[in-house]
């Protein structure tokens, strides 16, 4: 018998009496702040920051945020940057990127997370090899909590998707919190409405 069939047969023999699958209800938050305010608090708590962009030129804004940056690679047409990305880009070639720029599909107020997929990054490594990440988010595209996030079922058909919440971090030595563990050292979420023409 193959290992597969053997394991499945032994599971069937061992399985306890079946129990029902509970329904997951919606939970209303008592928090009276707006979703955008809660989102901002969540990001800040997890070591990131949120800024409003108004109608500022985004390339200028990115340069202003990261003055010393030499390589800016943007996965969104809203920012030009100086490194061209395409789905064919070798991921390892992004090792020298100082600032990655990407537009998130939506945010989660409860945790301050942004949802990003392989299509958004063009090259998923951009979100991890870049030293810093700038994430554009439409403040109208924020859901209340993780239940609402996971009910957007179509999002999870992506080949890869990640809820990113602040920069990479570790507290593995004496509990001392370090931002910039192995991935990005900083995350800035820029509130900017998504222009109709830029919608995918």
């Amino acid at each position, binding site marked *: 018998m193959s*290992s*597969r069939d053997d*394991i*499945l047969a*032994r*599971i069937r023999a*061992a*399985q*306890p*009496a*079946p*129990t029902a*699958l*509970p329904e*997951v209800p919606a*939970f209303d938050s008592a928090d009276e702040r707006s979703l955008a305010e809660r989102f901002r608090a*969540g990001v800040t*708590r*997890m*070591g990131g920051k949120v800024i409003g962009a108004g109608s500022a030129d985004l390339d200028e804004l990115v340069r202003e945020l990261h003055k010393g940056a030499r390589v800016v690679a943007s996965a969104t047409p809203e920012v030009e940057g100086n490194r061209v990305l395409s789905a064919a880009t070798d*991921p*390892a070639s992004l090792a020298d990127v100082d600032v990655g720029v990407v537009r998130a599909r939506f945010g989660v107020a*409860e945790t301050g997370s942004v949802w990003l997929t392989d299509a958004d990054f063009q090259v*998923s*490594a951009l*979100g*991890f*090899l870049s030293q810093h990440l700038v994430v554009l988010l439409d403040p109208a595209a924020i859901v209340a*909590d*993780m*239940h*609402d*996030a*996971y009910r957007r*079922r179509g999002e*999870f*058909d*992506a*080949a*890869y*998707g*990640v*809820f*990113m*919440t*602040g*920069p*990479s*971090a570790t*507290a*593995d*030595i*004496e*509990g*001392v919190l*370090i931002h*910039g*563990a*192995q*991935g990005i050292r900083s995350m800035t979420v820029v509130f900017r409405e998504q222009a109709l023409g830029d919608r995918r």
Partner: protein
Amino acid sequence: MTRRIDHSEAASRFIKAKDHAEFHDRRLWDLRGKRDRESAALPEWEELRTLASGIKDHALTHLAEYLEEFERNAIANGATVHWARDAAEHNQVVHGILAARGAKVLVKSKSMLTDECDMRPYLEARGIEVMETDLGERIQQLDGEPPSHIVVPAVHKLRGDVARVFSEKIGTDPAKSDVHYLAESQRGHTRPYFLEADAGMTGANFAIAETGTIVVCTNEGNADLSVHLPKLYIASVGIEKVIPKVEHLGVFVRMLSRSALGSPITQLTSHFRRPRPGQEMHIVLVDNGRMERLGMADFWYSLKCIRCGACMNTCPVYRRSGGLSYGATYSGPIGVIIDPTFNLRKFSSLPFASTLNGSCTNVCPVRINIHEQIYKWRQVIAGRSQLPIVKQEAMRAAGKVLASPKLYRAATEAATTSLSVMPRAVAYNPLNAWGRQRELPGAPKYTFRQWYLKNRAKSSSRTPPRGDGPGSKSK
């Protein structure tokens, strides 16, 4: 025959390093406090626990169907699915995948399952360099030790220990123990591996049946780097990790990091569904004793565990004895109920490393009745004469005393007198195990029986005066 792990002997060595032991206790208690603040902030916390427990119960009682559904979807996603009965088969499968592609360097994120399978030495003996990329796990790898905690693998070490290990193994300045310097050194040391590795590997926090997705919850970014750079990605998954639907993640993700570290979510919750163009994705589904556990009426609930470590952080025995003292991949309360299923004789002392205070059960996000299972394991072990000799003798003596009212009275009266009259040095000397690491309670002025005889024996209706009962502190 396998050597029996002597937990209390190992724990006594841990306690001797006073600075380490005190820091360890404080750090884990701090995590427990943070967990309390997070859970208290969610009015639906208890309901979430019930849901999580119910979803896991359902998934485990329909496990074969969900695994088949997961496999079907994973294959449709373009992944190759392998099945492994035990650790040896897991290691052979992984090595087979790597060897067939000539892979020489493997970068991996933390996975308790690969530790459970002892995969690293197996691959290393076959010429494959394995790079642990989680900071804590890397520290442990470089120091030749297993992880001492399932979430924070090097929590038993202080910065000076890390500075020593790093200076010996990756060439940092031995005089510098600044935590930022140490973490930055590891980042710099690890990065070229991500760029050049032939293969990447992760474990799995959850496997979603309806989509065939592997979900990995991390903070450092190392799991995503391990997947997004190499051309080959292998995920090792314990078969109990499968849950039915995407929407169920809401319940688990909301509780996992809140329980583990007291943060609302891990910095990264990654969903790997399909390989990128030009990449191969392999999923190894591993049994390794899980099915035996599923068939054990009293113990199958332990398979609901989502590996948050909350039970370890709250456990007074774990905090004061350190994870390595358990001599097993899984330590603390959850380890105590899992480990004996791997090897009853070897791990027969572990269920006694508990006060049965029930705190582990109270903090468990999936409502595993951990302390009850610990108690049941004690019964199994005592029934099979796997009790350590000292415990057998103590139990025999206790049995005699408890069975005889006269002996019991004599013993308690003697203890009451001696506790109040004996000088501190006698109670807190190295020979008295109960005086170590804890303050003994103030001795009552008389035993319950003495109090009863004085106050109640004649007129049973009389209310005892306040502060005059047994154990009262009034002086």
